[in-house]
């Protein structure tokens, strides 16, 4: 019964839509990263205090509709295996050191993509007592993806921009 449903559904992956309006490149991307990470990117996702709205959108990335794997992107279990950190949330005081440690545990060449308004401006949590600040106060960010939360297609475009696949702005 499972397989008859699979065959009836067929492939549902949609071509990547949208534009780069929500994406901004924060730093010059390293040549080594550009050369190495074009075809296979391993991503470690770090929730630095987010409300999980961005996480829900990110979890759609590996689903059949957005299918990040077709671009060579896959999520890994350890920053040692990762090339790119996907960070969400305003960095809370408790997550400041773990976020820094995650970044330090990632081998070179590495990139950081900050997802969501909270990651750049702390969003609605701005000024709160438990919040340290934007992600790039803790780790150097390469690409910001704005939105609250941004759509999966925008997140995907942000990742691809970071590895120079989706075209840069």
């Amino acid at each position: 019964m499972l397989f008859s449903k699979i065959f009836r559904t067929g492939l549902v992956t949609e071509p990547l839509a949208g534009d780069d309006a929500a994406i901004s490149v924060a730093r010059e991307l390293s040549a080594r990263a550009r050369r190495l990470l074009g075809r296979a990117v391993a991503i470690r996702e770090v929730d630095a205090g987010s409300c999980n709205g961005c996480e829900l959108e990110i979890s759609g990335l590996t689903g059949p509709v957005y299918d990040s794997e077709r671009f060579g992107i896959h999520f890994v279990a350890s920053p040692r295996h990762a090339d790119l950190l996907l960070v969400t949330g305003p960095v809370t005081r408790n997550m400041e050191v773990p976020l820094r440690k995650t970044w330090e545990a990632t081998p070179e060449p590495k990139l950081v993509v900050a997802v969501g308004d909270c990651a750049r401006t702390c969003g609605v949590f701005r000024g709160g007592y438990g919040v340290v600040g934007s992600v790039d106060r803790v780790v150097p960010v390469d690409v910001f993806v704005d939105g609250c939360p941004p759509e999966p297609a925008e997140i995907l475009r942000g990742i691809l921009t970071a590895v120079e696949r989706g075209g840069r702005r």
Partner: protein
Amino acid sequence: MTLETTACLSAYMVLAYLGGAFAALLPLRSGLTRALTAGGAIAGAGAGIALAARVLIAGEPFALTVPALLTVGGGVALRLDGLGAFFLLLIGVVAAPAALYGVGYSAAYAGRYSLRWLGAMLNLFLLTMSLVVLADNVLTFLLTWEAMSLASYFLVMTEHERPDTVAAGGWYLAMTHVGLALILVAFVLLSPAGGGGGFADLRAAAATLSPALRGVVFVLAVLGFGSKAGLVPLHVWLPRAHPAAPSHVSALMSGVMVKLGVYGILRVALDLLGVGPAWWGALLIGLGAASALVGVLYALTEDDLKRLLAYSSVENVGLVFIGVGAGLLFASLGEPAAATLALAAALYHALNHGVFKALLFLGAGAVAHATGSRDMNRLGGLIGRLPWTAACFLVGALAIGGLPPFNGFVSEWLLFQSLLPAIGSGAPLVAPVMTLAVGALALTAGLAAAAFVKAFGITFLALPRSDEARAAHEAPVTMRVAMVVLAALCALLGLGAAFVLPVLGGLLAGHAGLPRVAPALTAGPLLLPPGGGASMSPSLLAIGLLLALAGAWLAVRVGAARGLRVGDTWGCGRIGQTARMEYTSTAYAEPLRRVFAELYRPTEDLTIDVHPESRYFVQSRTYRSEIVPWFERYVYAPLVRWVAAGAAHTRAIQSGSAHAYLAYLVVALLALLAISLAWSASL
């Protein structure tokens, strides 16, 4: 000329050991005593190796009778044939490094325990062990066997201030004498009435005994020698006595003395009794498989490093007995080539086990010497602090785990290959027995690998779990050299299998049920079990592995990025890492403990202390879990209670009254008179 040289060598050996024993007893400085002990032992071991090599290579036995030494029972008769020479070689090969190790190790005993007594007993132990394999009549054998047991008892009791050592010594003494009694009865039954006690006479007389009597002798020999070898269910002294002894003594006991139990059975079953019925072999296979499984299962859950090694000895002895049983079985079924292979595999495994178990015990001793602890839950991080010990222990662990290309793998492969033809044989019940034996062998191999990954990994890797482990330092030079020598031997015995196997085949040829001329077991660097198409070459495998390693390393060096940075262990971003976050030895074995819970039946005890104000505030929790070995709880504890109860009742005889004792004397005298009258009347 040859005979004189061999006689000289045997005299050198005896004199070296005796010299070492006497020199050790002299009142000298501790350093000199230790050196003289080792000197005598190493010289004796060297002479023993030379003597054994001579007999193995020349192929002819050497005999010597000294009737004047003891007038009863034919005097002292010594004879060294191929079988005995092999075990003499094993003794020498393990004794020399162990004695060297003792120089550095026993320095810790100076002032507390008697180094002189330790040195004397060590040399006597080695001497009596060598004489056991040389013995050629019943009296010599039994005398040297008992002397060996006593010498080892005193060695086990070296650290007599510790209570568990005294208990271990008690267990050992009791069980070794039970074994002696059984062996004595076996030899008495085997001896021809009115004839001499020489082994040649026994051999001739054995053919005339009834099958029932031969069976009884065999079973008695299995039980008696099996108790020395550590065969289930007579193994319970092993996990107590071997850890209690000083480490080089443990190495000798585990590596060599238990093999003398194997030697005893081979001498009685293969040499003296000749070809027997198939159930002999099947019995040994069954007991061997049981020992192997029991040994490895209890080794897995042990936290004490030396007890783990002792249980592992039980396991490996079980494997040797599987080989011996298979050999006897094939001999009785009339398949001499297969029997040769099985027995050769068993002997090879005995040799290999002697070498790598000695290495592991010496390593464990170095760890205990450095940290003062044998509890793996208090060790860790020693690979950086004891680099030589760690590397040698790793070689030993890989060898005992049966991993290519070391010696343990070669003998296990040979054991597997020797069992294969049996499954195809037509005799009833052989195939199921052998199939289960193969299953047991494979399970043992896998579990042994797991146990030694645990032993090496928890002891040496990661962070130190206690201050003693943090403060550990490397072992002194003598201990390091001894371990390196044994590690090199492990590698050589694996790579040089093509040289060892023909020697084993040669020494087995000519025994009952085996071919006159040994079948070709090797072809160049290949090991070729007879009767199949399978072959293997450990040396070529090693070369292949090294080539692959070198190739991978070179390719990576050329083709891959070279940047390397040192960082913290990844722990999900947690702050700081302590030794409490590591896996412990108990935790490592936990999945297997659950799988085999029916066998282990662990007890669990959880105590929770709550704050007096409210039972929701927990102040502390204490968790205690224990595994009581099955045999101690269900077999020996009741037995000991029984005997103690019987002894308590019999104590009533000792009333303290002189009149009662006089009455006993009169009654005993009258009874003896009556019996002797009746006996002489019946003759």
